[in-house]
């Protein structure tokens, strides 16, 4: 590590401390109002990109750049996630050793319900994501859980997303203070700077969507999870929401948390709720 970086560090920490003290807008106790947050969040993007159709935001970078959109539409004719989709469909209907299938674990047999995930489980008092629910279903039926970042989980969530394509995101926040706290915790995670590069999710996906970060165009935060899971050319493979969150962490030089950590579940809850009304477009293909 060059000596230069410790110099950078010294100035960084000094700047941070100064910034914290002078930040004028530190409000003592905010009343958590998810509905107002969602409205403000959506309006921010609708006003920042007036000529992007509202439902197009779920196409991430392709809603921001015509040349990228053309490349994407060409790929969508025969998308690279085709195999994951077929594998997911087959796995979804293959019974466990005890004869049950995933359909027995999910409302409506797991078909066309992706838009309601993640949901807040009032019994457990925590957010439950689709990936977590799938692994819990496997464990409840005596099967080993899948890795949250590998192909099997991606194939299953790809199929479930596909069955909900076009349905508007419909995340509910029950009248339970723990649900409001999970939403707030997710929002805080989204705006918190981390890693040696000192970026938050918002630094890229709120302040500079549509701009390039080397070869890639940054996706807007609005509807950014609607296309999950995604086939990324960079990984030349499928990626679940968990894989995307963990790789984003390491890109900013922050050590990723464990898969399905509370922070990840809450930020997924926050990002999905503020995208309510926008269509599910998963599985997606991305750079």
């Amino acid at each position: 590590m060059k000596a230069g970086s410790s110099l950078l560090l010294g100035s960084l920490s000094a700047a941070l401390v100064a910034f914290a003290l002078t930040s004028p807008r530190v409000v003592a106790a905010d009343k958590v109002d998810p509905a107002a947050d969602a409205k403000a969040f959506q309006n921010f993007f609708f006003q920042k990109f007036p000529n992007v159709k509202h439902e197009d935001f779920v196409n991430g970078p392709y809603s921001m750049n015509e040349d990228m959109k053309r490349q994407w539409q060409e790929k969508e004719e025969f998308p690279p996630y085709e195999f994951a989709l077929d594998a997911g469909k087959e796995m979804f209907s293959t019974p466990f050793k005890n004869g049950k299938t995933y359909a027995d674990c999910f409302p409506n047999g797991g078909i066309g319900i992706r838009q309601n995930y993640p949901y807040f489980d009032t019994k457990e008092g925590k957010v439950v994501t689709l990936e977590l629910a799938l692994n819990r279903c496997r464990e409840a039926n005596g099967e080993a859980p899948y890795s949250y970042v590998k192909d099997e989980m991606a194939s299953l969530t790809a199929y479930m997303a596909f069955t909900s394509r076009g349905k508007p995101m419909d995340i509910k926040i029950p009248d339970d203070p723990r649900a409001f706290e999970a939403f707030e915790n997710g929002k805080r995670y989204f705006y918190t700077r981390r890693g040696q590069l000192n970026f938050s999710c918002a630094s890229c996906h709120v302040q500079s969507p549509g701009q390039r970060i080397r070869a890639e165009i940054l996706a807007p935060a609005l509807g950014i999870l609607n296309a999950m899971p995604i086939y990324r050319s960079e990984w030349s493979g499928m990626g679940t929401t968990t894989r995307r969150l963990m790789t984003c962490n390491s890109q900013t030089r922050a050590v990723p948390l464990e898969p399905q950590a509370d922070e990840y579940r809450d930020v997924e809850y926050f990002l999905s709720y503020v995208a309510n009304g926008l269509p599910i477009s998963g599985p997606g293909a991305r750079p």
Partner: protein
Amino acid sequence: MTTHIGPHPTRRLILQGAVTVALIGLGNLPFAPARAAANDKYPEEAFKQKSEADAIKALYGKTAEPSDKVKLDAPEIAENGAVVPVSVTTTLDKVTSISFFVAENPNALAASYKIPDGTMPVVANRLKMAKTTNVVAIVEADGKLFSATKEVKVTVGGCGG
């Protein structure tokens, strides 16, 4: 060939000369059908060539001239070097072969297609590109080679970690 000073060296030399000329001439002949035969066989040699010029020579045995009748469609900036959608279409007729080259890939020749008659001279595929370089499409029409070239920018994405 050792020159042998015999009684009629000049006649012998002339004879030898004639024989070699014939051979060279012949050499072309079997070569031509061989190249035609090569069409069916996998062009191993061409795929081994480093540069695009050598690959074209190994594959077709002649050089190409740029032509605006060959329309090459490739992105300005590749979304990702691993999956670059590239396609070509042409108004030339009697097209028998279409090939794609990525100039600065480890081996220039990426893909080569045989177009039997009755098949349209249009191909779309997805190629890997090692770095920013020229993508070249070659169309063999009525025995002659025509080309179109486009530079595609390739770099990694993200802030790097």
